[in-house]
């Protein structure tokens, strides 16, 4: 195993903003976001592709950013929790998580909100079974799923109205 790696130049859009970075090919996407871009809203929970705390939206589809290399996001459009808010106004998904108390410690929340984002983009009237499937890859170890379901139902309802 070599000790150092030649760096690779990549360009990507994160939350609508263009970034370029020079990264080792072994760098994970979540490390790029957190360490290089200082977007620490995307969390590292298990680092084993299980918990979903690192979930971000890439080109419209949620991915676990701990299970992708940063170089694989070259040319991609990424949305993280920091990009949900617009001009100081919280996204309806963020509002509904707050109003429904859909979080306890909050560690899983950014990932859950991005999973909600893809769900609501594909299905404006999700039933509980759809919600269950959509967030199956996001673990809340406070086990506050009742209120998370409430939050997602409310978000879908508010976004239909919007």
């Amino acid at each position: 195993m070599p000790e150092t790696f030649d760096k690779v130049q990549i360009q990507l859009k994160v939350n609508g903003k263009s970034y370029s970075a020079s990264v080792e090919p072994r760098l994970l996407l979540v490390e790029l976001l957190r360490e290089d871009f200082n977007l620490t809203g995307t969390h590292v929970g298990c680092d084993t592709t299980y918990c979903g705390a690192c979930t971000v939206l890439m080109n419209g589809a949620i991915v676990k950013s701990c299970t992708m290399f940063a170089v694989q996001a070259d040319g991609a459009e990424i949305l993280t929790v920091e990009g949900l808010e617009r001009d100081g106004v919280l996204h309806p998904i963020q509002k509904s998580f707050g109003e429904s108390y859909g979080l306890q410690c909050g560690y899983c929340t950014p990932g859950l909100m991005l999973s909600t984002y893809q769900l609501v983009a594909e299905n404006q009237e999700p039933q509980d079974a759809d919600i269950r499937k959509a967030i199956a890859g996001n673990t809340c170890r406070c086990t506050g799923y009742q209120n998370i379901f409430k939050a997602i139902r409310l978000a879908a309802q508010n976004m239909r109205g919007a």
Partner: protein
Amino acid sequence: MLSEMGDDAKLLAGGQSLIPLMKLRLANPNHLIDLNFVPDAAYIKEDGGSLRFGALTRHAAIEKSSVAAGIPMIHDCAVGIADVQIRNRGTIGGSLAEADPSGDWAAVLLTQKTEVNCLSPRGERTVPLADFISDAYTTVLERDELVREVVVKSPEKGSGGAYLAFKRSAPVYPTASAAVHLAMQGDFCKDAAIVLGCVGLVPVKAIGAEMELRGKKIDDNVVNAAMEAVRAAVDPQSDMRGSAEYKRTLAAGLVKRAIALAIRRAHGERVEVSHIYA
């Protein structure tokens, strides 16, 4: 590139198994060749009585494809693999090439007439899936060869199949899984294919159980005999997912349910099937 880099190079498809394995240092390749930028490697096509899947076709694309749902068992499988995030990245070609004993696709596709088109500098060759997986995590792929396409022949009319995987939670591999495909004429079973996942080093083709069904009118006695044959055919390991005896019983139970679903589908009924959670 693979031939130049030698044994230390690995192909990276969806990365949902390889990257976690690298983090655990169970895989430690010096070189990774990312296939994700290869054009035209992800597609689902219907072509002369077969479904053709590009090796880089994501599970999520298969889940959402009405073409792929032409073989309902394929939809059963795709819709329940791990979770949304993993289905958005993981690929059918990567899953078969990894040959994890707990992988979903191999068990499903072994009940169908499935071929794997492999590509190397020497050209292309077609390997029946039954010959493709040789051992746990081992395929017949040469070190400079990759999976290009997976071709599944559409099953005959009057047949039906179902895939059931039992999982403790979404992101983990199943504890046991069962794929059953039956060709029916009324209550009479003309042909049967039964493959079990997670209960051996490779997917287990339950030949004895198939024989119990083939050529018989399907009733409780026949199903019970098939379940006994399943228990005898599987060779599960006791691990954190359950004891060997538990998995034997689970596999037989899944086959019983899958037989019932396969018969309903063979008779033309539309049934929604997905993985089962503990």
